[in-house]
């Protein structure tokens, strides 16, 4: 509890920002959905056949899992707020459309006939009879949609839209229950409060008008802010993203500090926990992000066409990665840092002792005893389990794929007895695991370096210069310590990064 309060107090700025972002995404989606669904239902109520088809389509959209829908939207509208709003809007259309449609079509036919026989125009009938009678249904549709949007919006964090989902994702990544509680409780609270507000508003006509005005003002506020943002003089805008976990976030913060030291007017946006490798790489290709830290080995294994065997010498790997990226993708891969980060496999102390396993070649003997949990990337890559299997003749009895941090939790809870990991992971220490020796030198050493498009590098030579200061810096121990600070001790990545840079005289203050 104390730690939770401390986390909240320390991060109140960020929490508030996420909360506002969450509200903003939710409201914009809801309003767009209302603007689509309600007129559509009004229009289709007199064309019952199309109206029913509309219901079916809306129902089908609803059944697409939200994560899949978000994924499907990326190639169409990119990443960030836009696809999140599009996806949430699509979800919200269903309850809004359905409720408006049934509200309008279930009006007593006698009343409808009376209105027609009185000579009321279509518009008058809608305004004075049909809409007011359908309004309670419509408002309940809005409530359902809003609660659903607020809940689903937590998933928007996975495609870089921010919001409270950031905390939930971070919580899962870093195995930090406090973040999970903050993200989960706040989004639940938000849904609860707004649902209550809508119910209150819907209980009288005056309140509906009042509520409408508040929403309008809110919209004007957002709109005004957007206009202001667009009009005010723009300094250099740089977007730095990173993969999931604490290490990329620390590196991104270092990049930011270094860039801003040299260019105080640069406006650097960080998008931590942005997504997996291929997702980030695509985002970079599309110029949706400008820089992200990537590993040399990953470049050769997953990102470029390179069919020869990956060499074991880190320098060679970097050289090949750099030239291939420049040739195939027109990207610039800056000089790597010192530490080598690579995959490893780790087992519990207990397992290691019981079966006398200390190196990877020992595993062949106990194939049937191994219950493994792997990061999805690792289990699919040639430089991961696929290659490892051949090299060490492995065939584990059970292989589970799960998110990086969940897999450590799984081994801590004894659900599995073997996991993959990175050499810089702090959890090895935290859970007292045994890292198995790669005695046949299968895993290539991975070094981290900033990756960017070449035209960006040409346009921003100062940024390249700033980032190159990290060349050859940061040892494995430094990185492990920093990761430990962030993911176990819950320190802020920005603070940890800043402290390191100051300590090593890379930053003035």
């Amino acid at each position, binding site marked *: 509890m104390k730690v939770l309060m401390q986390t909240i107090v320390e991060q109140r700025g960020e929490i508030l920002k996420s909360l506002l972002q969450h509200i903003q995404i939710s409201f914009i989606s809801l309003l767009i959905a209302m603007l689509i669904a309600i007129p559509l239902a009004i229009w289709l109520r007199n064309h019952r056949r199309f109206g029913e088809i509309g219901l079916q389509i809306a129902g089908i959209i609803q059944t697409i899992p939200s994560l899949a829908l978000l994924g499907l939207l990326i190639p169409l509208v990119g990443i960030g707020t836009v696809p999140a709003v599009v996806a949430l809007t699509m979800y919200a259309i269903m309850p809004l459309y359905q409720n408006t449609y049934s509200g309008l079509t279930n009006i007593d036919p*006698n*009343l409808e*006939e*009376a*209105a*027609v*026989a*009185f*000579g*009321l*125009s279509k518009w*008058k009938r809608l305004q*004075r*009879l049909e809409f*007011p*009678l359908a309004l309670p249904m419509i408002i309940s549709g809005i409530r359902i949609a809003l609660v659903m949007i607020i809940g689903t919006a937590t998933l928007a964090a996975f495609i870089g839209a921010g919001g409270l989902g950031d905390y939930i994702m971070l919580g899962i990544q870093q195995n930090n229950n406090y973040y999970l509680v903050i993200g989960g409780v706040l989004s639940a609270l938000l849904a609860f409060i707004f649902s209550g507000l809508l119910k209150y508003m819907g209980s009288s006509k005056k309140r509906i008008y009042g509520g409408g005005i508040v929403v309008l003002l809110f919209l004007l506020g957002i709109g005004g802010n957007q206009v202001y943002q667009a009009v005010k003089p723009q300094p250099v805008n740089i977007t730095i993203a990173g993969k999931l976990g604490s290490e990329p976030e620390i590196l991104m913060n270092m990049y930011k500090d270094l860039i801003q030291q040299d260019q105080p007017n640069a406006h650097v946006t960080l998008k931590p926990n942005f997504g997996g490798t291929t997702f980030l790489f695509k985002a970079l290709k599309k110029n949706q992000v400008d820089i992200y830290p990537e590993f040399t080995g990953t470049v050769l294994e997953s990102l470029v066409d390179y069919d020869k065997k990956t060499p074991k010498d880190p320098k060679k790997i970097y050289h090949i990665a750099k030239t291939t990226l420049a040739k195939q993708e027109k990207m610039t891969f800056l000089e790597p840092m010192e530490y080598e980060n690579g995959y490893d496999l780790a087992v519990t102390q207990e397992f290691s002792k019981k079966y006398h396993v200390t190196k990877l070649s020992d595993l062949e003997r106990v194939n049937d005893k191994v219950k493994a949990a792997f990061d999805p990337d690792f289990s699919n890559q040639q430089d991961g389990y696929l290659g490892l299997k051949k090299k060490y003749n492995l065939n584990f009895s059970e292989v589970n794929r799960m998110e990086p941090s969940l897999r450590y939790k799984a081994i801590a809870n004894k659900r599995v007895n073997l996991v993959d990991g990175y050499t810089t992971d702090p959890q090895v220490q935290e859970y007292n695991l045994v890292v198995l020796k790669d005695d046949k030198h299968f895993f290539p050493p991975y070094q981290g370096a900033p990756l960017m498009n070449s035209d960006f590098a040409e346009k921003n030579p100062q940024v390249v210069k700033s980032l190159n200061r990290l060349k050859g810096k940061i040892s494995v121990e430094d990185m492990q310590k920093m990761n430990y600070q962030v993911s176990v001790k819950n320190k802020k990545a920005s603070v940890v990064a800043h402290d390191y840079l100051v300590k090593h005289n890379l930053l003035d203050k």
Partner: protein
Amino acid sequence: MITYKNIGMKYGPNTILHDVNLKIDDGELFVLVGPSGSGKTTLLRMLNKLTVPTDGDVYFEDRKIKEYDVQKLRLDMGYVLQDSSLFPNLNVEDNIAIQLEQKGVSKAKRHKRAAELLESVELDPKKYAKRMPAELSGGQQQRIAIIRALATEPSLILMDESFSALDPVLRKKSQDLVLKLHKQYKTTIVFVTHDMQEALRMGQRIAVLNKGEIQQVGTPHDIMQHPATDFVRQFFDIKTPHWWDMDFLVASNALKKIDFNEQLPVIDNFKELMKLLTQQTQLDFQYQKAGYSMTSQKLLAYLSEEGGVH
């Protein structure tokens, strides 16, 4: 004036109406009566173009209905449906003035007109104008529905089984109200009912319909005295003569009205009255809280006039 000329109506293979010819005069309270499925409501709905005949033409003020602008036509007609069909989301005043609102009449004028009409049915506008329909009794709702039809001072009011859903007491009150308002405003009213008692009570002239054909058109007296077809005779159940009905007696001039007094003996039906008048030549009594006087002589005169049915 309304004229139905050679009206036919077919839904697929079903003939709803066949060669209907009918004239309704201005200011008349005209009743269309017949069993369900006889086509009476279809005839009514042709007047406000909710239904368009497949054969023939309906004329309103010497113009074919189908040539009218439908909205204008409807705005100048009152309409009272079976249940009150008040718009539940609008208050009494807005309900009454809804057609005026569509016509673009100012709010102040609408308010005034609604108050006028409410007063005409003895509902205090101060008390009732802002109430919602759900806050009214069934009888009050029906009264509002009736005056709503009067709001635009229409030249024609259509009433479609308007009182069928009411209990007998309310029904009678509503009938009285329409009769009173009709006397007051001289509006043409076309009234559809399946209830022959109601038809006899309300209609200045009655058209009896069966299976899409007109059986007879005439005053209640004509129909009772000279039913044109067997159907009419059976429908009006002439075995139990209409003059057997106390209300019919009260409506005739055979009774002398006297001051009401609680002491007067209560008479509920015609049979009781006859029985008592065989024992005495003159009887003062009360019927439905009103005092009447009747002599056996008057009774005989009444019977000789009304009872001449075969």
